[in-house]
């Protein structure tokens, strides 16, 4: 399952995603609670989806 969607597995709880930039290795932190985005550090962080996964079959690949 996509890391930024994992918060829906923990309703009402604060979920922190700690990652590393693939370019420089520096940390990226995204803090959420349900609908709320509490923190994105750095604010300039971007996500890159390398394939048009919206056409993938539900229940496989990007959705797991």
């Amino acid at each position: 399952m996509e890391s930024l969607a994992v918060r829906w597995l923990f309703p009402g709880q604060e979920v922190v995603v700690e990652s590393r930039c693939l370019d420089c290795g520096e940390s990226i932190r995204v803090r959420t609670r349900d609908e709320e985005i509490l923190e994105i550090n750095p604010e300039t962080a971007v996500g890159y989806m390398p394939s048009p996964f919206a056409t993938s079959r539900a229940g496989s690949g990007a959705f797991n």
Partner: protein
Amino acid sequence: MNLFRSEEHLTRWLNYFHAVDDYVMPAGDWAKVFSATMFRRRLEPDYLARASEYLEDYRQALRAMGKTLPAPDRVMSTVLFTDIVDSTRQAAHVGDSEWRALLKRHNDIARNQLAHFGGREIKQTGDGFLSAFDSPTRAIRCATAICRAMPNIGLQVRAGVHSGECEVIGDDLGGIAVHIGARIGAVAGPNEVLVSQTAKDAVTGSGISFDDRGAHNLKGVPGQWQLYVVVS
């Protein structure tokens, strides 16, 4: 999805292929996209069964962020939904063991008819089948044959038929046409084959007769839908 500290870091990344930059967004926007129904309902018990329904909502979330998406594969198809009438009461009445045997006979009959009329079983849906046909005439004749055969084993089946463009999702079919077919099937009475106006019009000249069942609201589907019951 891969995270980068900024777009500059992404473009510096050796594996970055700029032709697909449709899928680059600020992390906050991705978080919003991942608020789509598809993701927030993950803990619900029927999630997997309904995942294909949620796909459009997810696409809309991407569109709301200004992203264009490749069109899914779509095919013209006639969908047939069949369902056992009052299955819970029947199962309770005959007991688990006998019900299992009855279900097997039901499935055998339905599959034989599907094979005879050239239908393709897409999946089982509780106590019935979703199947697809290239020809609406064969779909309707198959539905009629299934409905006529089931009373021989003490069951009654309802059936819904609709023709329209469906999304191809691997071995499955999805999209609004499939939902319409399911809703039409749910409206049908015992041993009835109910069809949409589209399916009825497509079989003009086939010799199949219909009675008008009037306009219906189909749950979750916009507009009113004229439905017809097969009489011969």
